[in-house]
Every structure is written in C-alpha cells, then in structure tokens.
C-alpha cells in the first residue's frame, strides 16, 4: 500500500500539528525531517491492517475541520493554530475510534521525531529547575530520602 501525494500532504499537516516543534526550547518541527520518506517506508513494512489504520487516521484529521470547526477546508488548508485546535479536539473525542486514530499518528510520528538526534539530545538534557513560590500548597509530603 502507498499513500497518494495528497495523502502525504495531509499526513504532513497532521503530524506538523502534533509535533510543531518549539524553537525557543530547542525542538525542531517534524516537517523539517524526512517525514514523507519515513511514512513511505512505514506503510511498506507494516501489515495491511496497520497501514489501513494510518490511512484512516490521515483522512480523519484531513476532513475533520468541517466537523470540528465548521470550516470547509482540509487540515492542510488551515492556519497552524487551527490545525492544532483540530487535532487536540479529535484526541479528546469521547469516541474511542476517533481518539485512537489520532494516537496512531502520534505513535508513528514519535518514532521519527524522538528518533531524531537533535530532539533526543534536547530531551535528554536536564532542564532548568522550576521556579519556587508557585503558590501551590503541598498538603502531604514526606522527606525525600538520599539515594
């Protein structure tokens, strides 16, 4: 099974909405990686059932704007902020099949995105300590024992 070019474009839009990157935090956008090449390889090696699931997930996200935002556009035709809004709403769907399809895209995208050298290096870099004085009140606490 192969994805058609327009399906690859749709997949890119959906994956880009899920993994948009955060340049200020050192995370690149998944669309800067060879996403289309990766997806071509994935659909070639997974069983047909999984490939069909991936295609269904791509179509769901692509056509969702009509149902989620009332906009007559595919996901790829929306602004970035609206694309994110669509996928977030789908992932929060009470319908198991819908949110599972979005999870398929997140799972496959994660294999590429978190497999990237720069992303992994950034993920494994210790982050700055959190700010103190957040206003949260800890009701129960035990002293942390030394390792």
């Amino acid at each position, binding site marked *: 099974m192969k994805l058609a070019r327009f399906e690859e474009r749709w997949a890119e839009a959906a994956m880009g909405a899920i993994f948009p990157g955060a340049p200020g935090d050192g995370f690149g956008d998944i669309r800067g990686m060879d996403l289309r090449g990766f997806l071509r*390889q994935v659909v070639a090696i997974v069983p047909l059932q999984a490939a069909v699931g991936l295609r269904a997930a791509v179509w769901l996200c692509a056509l969702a704007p009509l149902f989620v935002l009332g906009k007559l556009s595919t996901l790829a035709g929306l602004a970035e902020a609206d694309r994110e809004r669509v996928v977030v709403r789908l992932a929060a769907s009470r319908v198991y099949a819908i949110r599972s399809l979005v999870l398929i895209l997140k799972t496959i995208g994660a294999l590429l995105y978190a497999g990237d050298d720069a992303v992994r290096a950034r993920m494994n870099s210790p*982050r700055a300590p959190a700010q103190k004085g957040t206003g949260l009140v800890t009701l129960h606490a035990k002293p942390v024992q030394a390792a």
Partner: protein
Amino acid sequence: MPHDDHAPDHEHDHSQPRVAFPDESLPEGSVVDGAALAGDVEEAFDYVVVGSGAAGAVAAHTLAQAGFSVAIVEEGPWVRTREFGERVYEAFRRMYRDAGTQVIEGRSYVPLIQGRCVGGSTVMNSAIAHRTPEDVLDEWRARFGLGQHLTAEILAPHFDALERELNVHAVDDEVLGRNNRLFLDETSAMGLPARKMHRYERNCRGSGRCVTGCPNAAKQGMNVSYVPWALSLGARIYCSCRVDRVVVKDGVATGVLAHTIAKDATIAHVPRAVRLHARRGVLVAASTIQTPNVLRRSGLRARAIGEHFSCHPGYGVGGVFDEPVGMDFGATQGAECTHLRKTERIKLETIAMPPELAAVRIPGLGRELMKNFGAFSNLAVWAVVIRAEAEGTVRPGWGGRDKVKLSFTKRDIERTRKGTAMLARMMFEVGAREVWPGIFGLPPVIRSIDEVRLIEEAPTDQRVWSYITTHLFGAARMGVDPKTSVVGPDFQTHEARGLYVVDSSVFPTNLGVNPQHSIMGLSRLAATRIAERARAAGASGTRAA
C-alpha cells in the same frame, strides 16, 4: 530518512580493542540464512526445534548437550550485537513482529510486543528472572491434574543451572540509575517490601537500551547465550525461515516444512522450501501467539488449541521531578515489588523508556506536547503489571497472521486502577512535582497528591486505559484431559507422538511475575525428559563428533 542504524555505532569505544561478541565467530555451517538461500534445502536431524526464543534456545541447547543433532528454525533474522542501534524504529523494523504494530483486539486495542529474530523477545526484554511462584505451581497441580509432574523441587535444579549459566544476580548499584533508586527509596520509606531486580546479565553498563538490543552483549538474551552455545555443540539454525507446518504422518511428527522469507517487507525475495526431517521429535517453541496456529496448520484439532490465552497487561505512570532522573542511564528495569502479587494480583515495577516510546505517553499535542517534551530528562516511569483474570483466544488471522482477542475483566481494571493510584501517590511522596496518569477523561497532568483520588475513581472501561502487554500464556495448555488441554504433563501433544510444545503456551495460567525464567525452566525440564526417554529407549545421538 530516519537515522541510519547500520552506520558504525558512535557509542562503541574505538580506542579499545574490538570485543568479540558471542554471536560472532560461530562454527562454520551452523547458521543458514534463509534470506540468502539460492535453492531448496532438505536435511535430517534427531530433533527440530521451532523458535529460538527463551524456550526454543534452551531446549535446543539441552538436546545438543545430550548428544543429539538439532536444527533450530527461526522465522526472524539474526541481527548481531554489533548491528544493534539506538533507534526504536529501526529495532521495530528489523526485530519486532509486524514492525511493532501487533495488537490484542477486544474492548480496546492493546499493543502486543513480540520479538521476531534469533533470540526472540529475549533480545528486547529486560532480562528479569523470577522462579515460578509456588502458589502458581500448586494451582496448576490442583486445577489441571498435573499431579507431581511440575513441582518446585523438580524445577529447582533447572532454575539453578539457568541462574548459574546466565549469571543471574541483583542489579549492581553502579548501574541502578535514578528511576530505580527513587522507587526503592519510596518503597523503603513506606515499608513496602521491594527489591532490586534479578537479571540475566554480565557487566551491564546501564546503557538503558534493552528495548533495542543490548549493544554490549551484557544482557544474556538467547542470541548471545543458548543459541551460540547450542551451535558450538553441533546444532544448526535456519534463520528467516517460517514454519508452514509440522509434518505428522500416522500420528507421528516426522519433521517440518518451512519456507524462507525476506529480512523485511521492503526486500524482494524468492521463497525457498526448507524441509527438515526429525528422526526423534519436533519441539514447537514459537510462543503463545504463533504456536497454536502452527499446530492448527499441522492438522491438530484439539478443542483447547487457541483457547485460554492470558497475559499480564501493564500500565505505566510518569512522574516529573525537579531534579534530573535521566532514564537514558541505568538498568531499563531495575526495581520491583511483588508483595501484592498473591493478594491483589498486582506487581509494581520501574521501566525506563526510550524517548520514542515515552513520547507516545507524554501528555498533549502541539505546543502542550512540546512543553512536556522538555520535561523528559526529569521524568520517571513506573508501571503496574496485573495478573489478569481475563482469558482470550488465538486464531489464524488474515494473510497468515495471528489474531488475538481478549477483553479485560472489571476486576482486572479495578486492580490496574488501584496499582496506578499507588504509584501516583508514591511518586508524589518521593518528590514528584506532577504525575501523568494517562487515563482518558482525567486531567493529563495532576499536581497534588489529593488529585490521586481522581485515579481511584476512574472508570473501569478498558477504553480509557492505555495498556500494553508482553507476557503471554496459555493457548496450547498442559493437562491430563485431551478434551481441555493440548499437551500432557510430558509436554507431548495428545494428538501426535513426537510433537512437543515447550513454550509458555503450555502454561495452564499466567504467573503474576515475569515469565522468562519459568519458560526456560519448563523448556529445560521438557528437553531433559525427552532426551532421557530417548536414551532409555536405546537411542544414541547422531550429532557429528
């Protein structure tokens, strides 16, 4: 394109002499690569073993050690230690069944992880050793009429040998890692009995790369232990060969028919026929999922084939700490609590996840996901593993695949909920700033121990829980009644002489602890008895000196 894992691994220290791994320099002719065969093959051996995972490798070694000629037939390729990379996608593509996309179908889809390579799932598991619990053995004897065939005393010498040969010991402090230390700190503070895991490893360096194959051959998977050891005793392995069926003639197993396959689906391949005659017997060790369908394709029709499939569903919880945790260093799984196994059917344990797998459970999409990605280095992941009551089925699926169906019971999910809530509390008590429960309908992030009650009140609908499972049992179970079992206490199928099943599909129930040790122990017992009976019948091995 994704990272090229076939490039030299930059993590190997090239300033040091090149270490020879046990899966290199194997006896000439001992490895037949089905993917590279130019023509059909027909050979004869005393025994043919289907599968090179925990059960098949140990059985083959035991029989080879007894002087018999042995062929191992393995569906997957042999990926050598030196070829192991760090990327989960490459590991999925080369070494996991269906590229890691297998699922159990039921009320929800539950990912099912199996290896498909020489060494099977032992190449990518965490190498945890647990003897079969005595209460489980008691249950098998009482419920399944196994009498005195399987007792702790009978299994003990086999476990002793395995532990000696595979260097089983508690995780060394130097490679424990913070994810495991936090767990042990909190269980100690709570007074909850817990311990460092006992694993099969030599000189673990804490690479945290169990899931993609140990790059140092420290983990004693079958690929670097019993398979090479069996080959050094004269056994031969046929890789990239899928068994179509066991040949059963007049009620006697006489060999296997297999065909070669490509190393992955993108490579063009002309299948070759591989016909292996077995003078004395065939041992099927293809795992709980594949064994039942091999038996069906071989003409067996026992009602119990494919029935009573069970598993240990696992559920992971993430906790974010102020200080770095660093799951990229340390034993992938190094700490556990089995105190609640008998009473609650719950096991608590740690599990460090590589970034690609953790990313799926990191909350959010879009900018929220990216923000939480930044917390990865401060993330600890612990899991609850349930000894599920639910039973399912294994049937042939479309396109020659295997179809597994199972839905967890309400009590299974209640136990998951209880264990998850315990872990969340433990994480807060040991200093987590936030916990990621991953339960649909709950906040993706909870920031106070008081919010753990939301987990305790979560629905018992399987569809809101993100399970995964790796421990698989039943589906060709052992018993004395042919109406309700597939093999007898001697591991021989009721329907065909000389046809044995020696993997976890014969387990009458699941265990509540990691199964590799039990699988190897029972396989060693089975192969030892098979060899003893053959000797008693006057057989001498035909292995070349």
